[in-house]
């Protein structure tokens, strides 16, 4: 269970968040939508611990994975080395253990045959799955995705959604910040509408239509794209 109560960030004029609160059951997928500058990425980064913030109370997992929009994998290491780096240096696994975990996560994301490739020799979609594999290796309980589909070809977007649904089956909670309409329709259990740093609306996807009325016209128009 993730419980956030009154999370705020007042650092600059542009990257503010105000009193964000929501509860997300374990194993669900939440998609944050909103226009550029609404605070989706900022909220994600705060949850990850990459930005400072204040909060009245919060419950969130210790191990969190993050998939950035781009430039995720360490360019000077092979895919295999990318995955094993933290296993060995942070979790202090032995070489054999690290190998085992590495092979297992690569199978999960279907990249076993690209183990020895450098990121620059992998396609955008493969790099992303590689990043997910690297995060999975550390056995996180929550994975955050920042605009994961923006740079992908349409076919690859569906592949990513497939993977996310499979990961959901293993009990992993996932939060996605996205412009992508399909993210809500095809994959999400919950959606959050961000506007000027506020969490305007937080609802189960199925109940979104009923919450429609309470929104301003502009936001209604925006939401319509997603449901």
């Amino acid at each position, binding site marked *: 269970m993730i419980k956030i109560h009154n999370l705020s960030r007042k650092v600059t004029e542009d990257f503010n968040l105000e009193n964000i609160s929501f509860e997300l059951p374990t194993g669900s997928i939440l998609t944050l939508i909103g226009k550029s500058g609404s605070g989706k990425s900022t909220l994600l980064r705060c949850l990850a611990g990459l930005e400072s913030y204040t909060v009245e109370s919060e419950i969130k997992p210790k191990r969190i994975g993050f998939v950035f929009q781009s430039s995720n994998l360490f360019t000077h290491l092979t895919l295999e080395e990318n995955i094993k780096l933290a296993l060995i240096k942070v*979790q202090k696994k032995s070489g054999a253990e690290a190998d085992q975990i590495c092979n297992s996560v690569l199978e999960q994301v279907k990249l076993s045959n690209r183990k020895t490739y450098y990121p620059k020799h992998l396609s955008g979609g493969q790099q992303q799955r590689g990043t997910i594999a690297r*995060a999975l290796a550390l056995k996180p309980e929550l994975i955050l995705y920042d605009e994961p589909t923006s740079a992908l070809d349409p076919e690859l977007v569906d592949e990513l959604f497939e993977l996310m649904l499979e990961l959901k089956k293993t009990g992993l909670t996932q939060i996605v910040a996205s412009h992508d309409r399909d993210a809500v329709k095809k994959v999400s259990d919950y959606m959050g509408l961000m506007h000027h740093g506020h969490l305007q609306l937080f609802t189960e996807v199925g109940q979104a239509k009923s919450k429609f009325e309470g929104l301003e016209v502009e936001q209604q128009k925006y939401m319509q794209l997603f449901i």
Partner: protein
Amino acid sequence: MVSVGEAATLRWAADTESGAPYVFYKSENMQQMTGFEYDIAMALAKKLNREPVFVQNAWEGLVLGLESNLYDIAINGIEILEERQKIVNFSEPYYATYLQIVTRQGETRFKNLSDLAGTKVGTLSGALSEKVLRAQNDVQVLTYESETLAHRDLTISRSDALLVDAPIAKYFSEINPRFQVISTPISSMTYGIAVSKKNPELLKEINKALNEMKASGELKEILERWALWNSATATLFDDQSPTRLKPVHFEEYKESLNLERTFKERIDVYQKAMPLLLKGAWQTVRISFSAMIVAVLVGLILVSLRLYGNRATAFGVAFFVEFIRGTPLLLQLFFIFYGLPSVGLEISAFTAAVIGLGLNYSVQESEIYRSGLLSVHRNQVEAAKMLGLNPWQTFWSVQVPQAFRFCLPPMTTDFIALIKDSSLVSVITMVELTKTYSVLSATYYDYVGFAVIAASLYILIGMPLVVLSRKLERVQA
């Protein structure tokens, strides 16, 4: 001070670049040192019953080296002047002379000092002649580190005249048909042997030996052989006896000079000089590569402190960086080599050179590393953080390997600059490639030929760096 049990040596210093007739290498045999002060030093050593050991140092650093106990005496046409006597002791004068004006052949404008008004006059820096010139109104003073260059500029009309010590006028100007010496003696001075003030015992011994040499006529004989005996010295020694010996060494020198060499003779000279040039090149390589290692290590420390240290260390680093960046490398070398001993830290010339050059370039290196690190995408660092790597691990496992690629080209440029800057260490007694070139060009009066060889050697020294750097860049790509 020679302590009981130590072998008795007389370490004496001079700058062989200052050339004839003081202390210089014979052109026919580059291993053999000669000069009237060489003769005097050898005679003194014999009288004091000590083994003479020669130490080369740049002329500007001769007195300083005494203070740092690099050698016991310095004898190299050092005029006995009041301000020098505040720092070191001088022996009784061993020679008295004066200044003379040197002009191009056929010049008629200048007969005495006042005629020089409104002209450009060259002289050796730090010598009495410089003081005398500066005391004149309306004279543009050009200072030189070597006689050869001073004369060269006179030839190509960069200067109108030179003002030099009479011995230089005799050995550089008079024997060269391109120049003429105006005989009028200007000012007067005496040369003395410089001894550290901490060594009054040695001073006594030196003076005793000198007086013996004066009384026996040995000193006069040395000066006569070098055609340097003059009335001023006769008065100084109170010895008005007529000149007896022929100026053998002066004649030898004139013959060896061979100003117009044939091409084949020149090639011979270059071949003979190659071992010396290679020796100098090796010194350059040793010093430069050692300094580079220091620069990289200190540069890495500086950049880590700057990016990850606290306020206090950041301030310390900033202060260090601005100090090094804002002062000339030459001064830094002087400070390390001559200044540190005064607070009890005695270090060899090689160590001082490596530290001086290394620290100086560490600052530039740290700036290169800083910009290289900043070029690493933010997401890479954040990804590392999300994976649980601590800042130290992130630095070494993620940032440094990626930054390295960006840093290679400016690092290569930096190190080639360091190799060239290594030529400055001649001021702290190291004889590297440029100094070797200076001495050779002065000995053989050939600056172009040797310059080409020396320059080629510098390029060769830098080659491995360029090749290695290109290889590394390709691997990283």
